[in-house]
C-alpha cells in the first residue's frame, strides 16, 4: 500500500524568506530515503511540505508540485486532513499527548477521526504497539500516562501513534536525535521492519545512521546563510557514501565541510 512521492520544483517560503528552492526528487514505494545536510539547509522544511505541515505556520507557503501516486497533494480540492492521514509524521522531540494514557495516545488518531468501536481500537492499539516494538514494555500499564515513559519509549509511542492510522508514508524528522544509543538502535531496527509496509523518509544528522537504514540518500546544502537550501545530490545510499559524484557531498560526508 506504500506510495511513490514525486517532488517537482518545490520551493518553500517562510513569509518572504525562501528556505528551499527547486527541489526535484522521487521517492519509491517501500524504501527508506534519508535526507542529510548541514543545519538550516531546509531538510525539515522539505519534509514538512510533503504532508502539508509547512503551511501550519503563519505566512509559510509552498510552490511547485508534490504528488503522491500522481495525485497532487497541493491541489485546491484536496482535503489537508486526508493528506496527513496518508502521510504520517514523527517529530524530533517525542510529543505524546500529556492528558492521555498510553492506550489513548496510540488510538488518538483513530478516535479523533471518529472510530468508536472498542474492539477495533483495542486491536489497532495492540498491532501498532507491537509494530513499534513497544508492546511488551507497556502492555501492563496501558492506562498510565504516556508522558511517564522514558524518552526512547515515548518516541516509539509516537511512532506507534503514527502507524496506528495506517498511513502509506511515514516522515521522520531526526527521530533519534534526543535518544540514547540503545533506543536509537531500537528505532533503526523498527525502520527495517516498517519498510515492508510503508515508504519512509527520514532526516538525520548521523551519517552512520543514514548509511545503515536508508536505500537512497538526498544531500541538501546551502551556499551561505540566507540563501535557500538546494538538493545537491540524490542517489543510492551506497553510491553517496562510497563514490559521490559531487565534490560538496564528498566534503560533507567526510567531515571536511565548510
Amino acid at each position, binding site marked *: 500500500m506504500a506510495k511513490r512521492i514525486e517532488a517537482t520544483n518545490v520551493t518553500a517560503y517562510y513569509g518572504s524568506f525562501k528556505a528551499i528552492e527547486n527541489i526535484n526528487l522521487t521517492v519509491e514505494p517501500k524504501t527508506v530515503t534519508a535526507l542529510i545536510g548541514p543545519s538550516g539547509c531546509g531538510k525539515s522544511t522539505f519534509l514538512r511540505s510533503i*504532508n502539508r*505541515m509547512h503551511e*501550519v505556520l*503563519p505566512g509559510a507557503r509552498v510552490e511547485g508540485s508534490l504528488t503522491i501516486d500522481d495525485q497532487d497533494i497541493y491541489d485546491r480540492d484536496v482535503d489537508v*486532513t*486526508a*493528506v*496527513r*492521514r*496518508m502521510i*504520517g*509524521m514523527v*517529530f524530533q*522531540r517525542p*510529543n*505524546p*499527548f*500529556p*492528558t*492521555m*494514557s498510553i492506550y489513548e495516545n496510540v488510538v*488518538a*488518531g483513530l478516535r*479523533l*477521526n471518529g472510530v468508536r468501536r472498542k474492539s477495533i481500537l483495542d486491536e489497532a492499539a495492540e498491532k501498532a504497539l507491537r509494530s513499534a516494538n513497544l508492546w511488551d514494555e507497556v502492555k501492563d500499564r496501558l*492506562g*498510565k*500516562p504516556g508522558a511517564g515513559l522514558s524518552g526512547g519509549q515515548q518516541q516509539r509511542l*509516537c511512532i506507534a*501513534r*503514527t502507524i496506528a*492510522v495506517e498511513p502509506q508514508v511515514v516522515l521522520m524528522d531526526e527521530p533519534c536525535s534526543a535518544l540514547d544509543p540503545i533506543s536509537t538502535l531500537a528505532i533503526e531496527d523498527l525502520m527495517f521492519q516498517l519498510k515492508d509496509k510503508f515508504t519512509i523518509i527520514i532526516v538525520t544528522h548521523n551519517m552512520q545512521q543514514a548509511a545503515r537504514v536508508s536505500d537512497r540518500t538526498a544531500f541538501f546544502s546551502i551556499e551561505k546563510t540566507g540563501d535557500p537550501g538546494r538538493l545537491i545530490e540524490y542517489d543510492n545510499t551506497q553510491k553517496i557514501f562510497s563514490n559521490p559524484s559531487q565534490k560538496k557531498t564528498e566534503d560533507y560526508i567526510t567531515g571536511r565541510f565548510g
Partner: protein
Amino acid sequence: MSTAVTTHRPRPAAQPATLRAKRLPWYAAPAIALAALVVAAAVVYGVGIGGPVLVVVLAAVLYLAGLFAAANAVEGRRSARNRTWSALIHSAFVLAVLPLASVVWTLVSNGFERLDGNFFFTSMNNIGARDPEGGAYHAIVGTLEQVGIATLITVPLGILCAIYVVEYGRGRFAFAIRFFVDVMTGIPSIVSGLFVLAFWVLIVSPWFNDGRPSFSGFAAALALSVLMLPTVVRSTEEMLRLVPAPLREGAYALGVPKWKTILRVVLPTALPGIVTGVMLAIARAAGETAPVLLVAGGGAAINFNPFENNQSSLALFVYQQAGDASRYAPARAWTAALTLVALVLILTIAAKLLARRNRLGR
C-alpha cells in the same frame, strides 16, 4: 586562520586547597536570634518607648546584622551574604503571610459566635433590631444563584473568545478584541453595575414586567459577568498560549482537524490553568457588593427566583449588617464574611480536584 593566537586567556582563579570550609555550628542561628530578641527587649523597655512590635522589628534587624557578622567572621564573605539573603527572603515570606493569617484568624474568631443552624436556615425577614436571631439563608441563595448564572454566561463565552484570539484571530479584529478585553479588566465594579442598571433594569426589564423596571438577581449576574469576562478571557488566553506547538502539530500530523485538535488536545492540556482563572473570576465576583446593591436591590426575604424581584447576596449582607444599628448585626456580618470565604475556598478546592481527576491518575 594562520594568525597566531595572541589573546590572553584569563588565568584560572586560585584553587582552594581543600573542599572543606569552616561552618557555623547549627545552634549559631537560633542563638543569635535569641540574643537579638533579648537585646531588643532590653533596649525597648529600658528606654521606655514602643511595645512588643518594636521589639520584634528591632530583633529582626539585630539578627540580620549579627548573623552577617558571625558568618562573615567564621565562614567568609560569600557564605555571609548567602545567609543574610536567605534570612531576608524568609522574612519577606513571613511578612506576606502575616496579613493573610491575621484575616483568617479575625474571621474565624469573630464569625464563630453566630455559626449556628439558625444563621444558615433563616433569612432576615421580620427580624427586628431587638431580635438576636436572623440569618443569611437568603443571601447565600442569592450569591449562589447570581454567581452561578454569571459563571454559566462567562465561562463558555470567555473560553470561546480566548480560543478565537489565540487560535484563529488574525489582524485588526483580533487585536481590537484583545484591546477591549484589556480595557474591560480595568472597569470598576460600580461602573458595571451602573451599566446594567441603565441598560437592563431600566430599558429591558420593563418589557417583561408590565412596563415597570424591576430589580432581579439576573441583573446582578449580568453585572458580575461584565467583571468576570475579562479575567476568564485573559487567563484562558495565557494558558492556551502555553500549550506547546509540537502538541498541536502532533495532532495535525495524525490528520485531526484543527477544531478537534483544539477541543480534544489543546483544551484538556490547558484545563487546570483555565480552571484556576475561572476560580479567580468567581472569587472576585462573589465578593462584589456595589453591583448587587445597584441592580438586585438587596432584600431581607428569601427569593429563589433570580428573574423577579429583589435578591441579596453574602457580600451585600455583610455590608448591610456591618452598618446596621442593631447590636446583634455585627456578629451576623462576621459570620456571613466567614461563610463567603469558606464558600469560595470550597469551590476552588472542588474545581481543582475535578480538573486533576480529568488529568489521568487511574
